[in-house]
């Protein structure tokens, strides 16, 4: 299989280049401008989504990494973003529903999604209700079933902290801490979460070869036999579209109604964002509600054709399913395992800085 033409050799070294403005009217007499951080992006990926008012900087990423892992942003100072988005699990949670910090530790209502290549994410959350990483980062802190701390209190804590005012000053030119700046820093850190070093990537670069089982799974994945590729393409592993894949046919009794809760459009009933399959072997349980514990269960869902809601996606073949044999399923799983990027989940630049 000649695939090297699809993936050029990648260099993930970080290049530090000239200073840039972040649009927050920094006071140069107090803080020098932050240093632009230019990430060596995978050339085969589309252009990333970086807001013009929040360029990625060395200082912003450093600050964002601290905020991502600092439990100071939760009501009882026990839980950080990284508590539910765990690097070992590709920044997902191994629990079906994460638990918050409020008394009784209430469960969330959706599975904490993995964070992989979020720089290409056009909409955040399973229902796509936020258009940017910055907007997404604003939600969990005050959410009563998550970190449960109003942003006014969170920023007051940060303002009183011995180090954070200076870190904000270095990142944004001002030590007056606001929610806007805090979420910008977290988003900057998240934009450094780039994963393109799985075995699949290395095969595409001609550096490794699939086993026979992996190759069989690869062919099934990327043809209409298993037909995974239409929603989980070869680069980002997702179309980022919203589909109803037929997990449910009745939406009563507390069944999650999905994107319709955001748009109010009946067509969006039961639709959720297509997740990336990169690192999928690390991110169990699966689906928006974590209903499947194994990849075999996931594939068997598609293999049986879904439960036929009126807006089931045409690619989920109600009535016929995929027709995969048990052996075929194992081949596909063998291929899915090649999407695991162990360098990503061990990248020290993405790890908890308070552990070192």
């Amino acid at each position, binding site marked *: *299989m*000649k*695939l090297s*033409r*699809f993936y050029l050799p990648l260099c993930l070294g970080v290049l530090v280049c000239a200073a840039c403005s972040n649009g927050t009217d920094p006071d140069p007499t107090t803080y020098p401008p932050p240093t632009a951080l230019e990430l060596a992006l995978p050339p*085969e*990926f*589309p*252009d990333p*989504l970086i807001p013009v008012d929040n360029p990625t900087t060395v200082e912003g990423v450093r600050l964002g990494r601290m905020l991502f892992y600092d439990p100071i942003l939760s009501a009882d100072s026990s839980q950080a973003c990284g508590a539910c988005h765990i690097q070992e699990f590709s920044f997902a949670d191994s629990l079906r529903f994460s638990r918050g910090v409020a008394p009784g530790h209430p469960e969330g209502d959706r599975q904490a999604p993995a964070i992989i290549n979020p720089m*290409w994410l*056009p909409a955040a959350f399973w229902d796509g209700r936020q258009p940017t990483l910055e907007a997404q980062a604003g939600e969990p802190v005050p959410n009563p079933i998550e970190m449960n701390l109003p942003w006014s209190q969170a920023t007051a804590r940060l303002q009183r902290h011995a180090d954070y005012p200076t870190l904000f000053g270095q990142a944004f030119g001002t030590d007056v801490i606001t929610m806007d700046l805090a979420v910008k820093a977290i988003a900057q850190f998240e934009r450094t979460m780039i994963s393109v070093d799985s075995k699949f990537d290395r095969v595409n670069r001609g550096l490794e070869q699939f086993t026979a089982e992996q190759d069989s799974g*690869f*062919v099934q994945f*990327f*043809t*209409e036999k298993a*037909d995974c*590729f*239409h*929603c989980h*393409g*070869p*680069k*980002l592993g997702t*179309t*980022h*579209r919203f589909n109803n894949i037929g997990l449910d046919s009745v939406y009563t009794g507390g069944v999650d109604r999905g994107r319709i809760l955001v748009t109010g459009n009946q*067509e969006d009933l039961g639709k959720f964002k297509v997740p990336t399959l990169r690192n999928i072997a690390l991110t169990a349980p699966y689906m928006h509600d974590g209903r499947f514990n194994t990849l075999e269960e996931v594939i068997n869902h598609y293999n049986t054709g879904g439960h*036929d809601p*009126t*807006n*089931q*996606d*045409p*690619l*989920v*073949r*109600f*009535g*016929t399913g995929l027709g995969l044999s048990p052996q075929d399923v194992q081949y596909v799983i063998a291929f899915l395992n090649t999407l695991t990027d162990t360098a990503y989940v061990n990248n020290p630049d993405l790890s908890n800085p308070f552990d070192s």
Partner: protein
Amino acid sequence: MKISLQTLFALSPLAVLVVAISACDEDITGPFEGSTVNLEISHVVGTADLVVDDVIRYANVAGNNYSVKDLRYYVSNFTVHFDDGSTYGSSAAHFVDARASRSETHSIQLENVPDGTVVGISMVYGLDAETNVDGALPNTLDTADMEWPPPMGGGYHYMKLEGRWEDSGNPGSLLGYTTHTGARFMPSMGDTYRHHHFINVYMDLVDTAIDHGESPEEGYEIRITYDVNDWYEDPVTYDFEALPQQMVMPLLDVQEQLMVNGPSCFSASFATV
């Protein structure tokens, strides 16, 4: 929907190649301050405007009731034809997403069109053999999933038309259809051999003079009407109950049958705006 077309010559890949080359011979040569011609594509199903959603709204000639959940495609090589036999065009490829929210993608501009009497416009529905290869088109978030997968030869889908249809043998049951079109990889012909599929479309226009000295401020407009129903009729009736509705990407006979029907999907008219 019956329309006047001069298109069936497009069915042979060799003929397609010849036409593409001859069109290029008289293509754009250097800057010329001519007129702007705006190409506006509207989508219909029979007599109804296309609504891209999950509702069963339409019926094809075979009697299949169906919805259109998705219609995305490439068009390229727009060429204006003049009464003296000359042509003027652009080989650029354009991605169109028919969802209403993406309506800005339905407008394509031809710049610097020279003066003359226009008698028709042609285009390639899809991508020619030179363009339908990996990496030939910009890789954007909107178009990333138009790729034709590596084990099937690579390149791009030239169309994704998807929805659901009512199975008359099982009332109340909706089945999916995925009319996905593109090149057919034929490993038996060699590791890189691909049987290319795309459609040359020629649309007659009532003779209209273009004069950049007198052109209106906004230029000229050619309105192209795209009738989705014609994929499944004229000349070949495509019945979902009898023919494959899913997994058609590797089916050479289905791909070629759709190519036969494709040209009749399009008609055009000229408007001065």
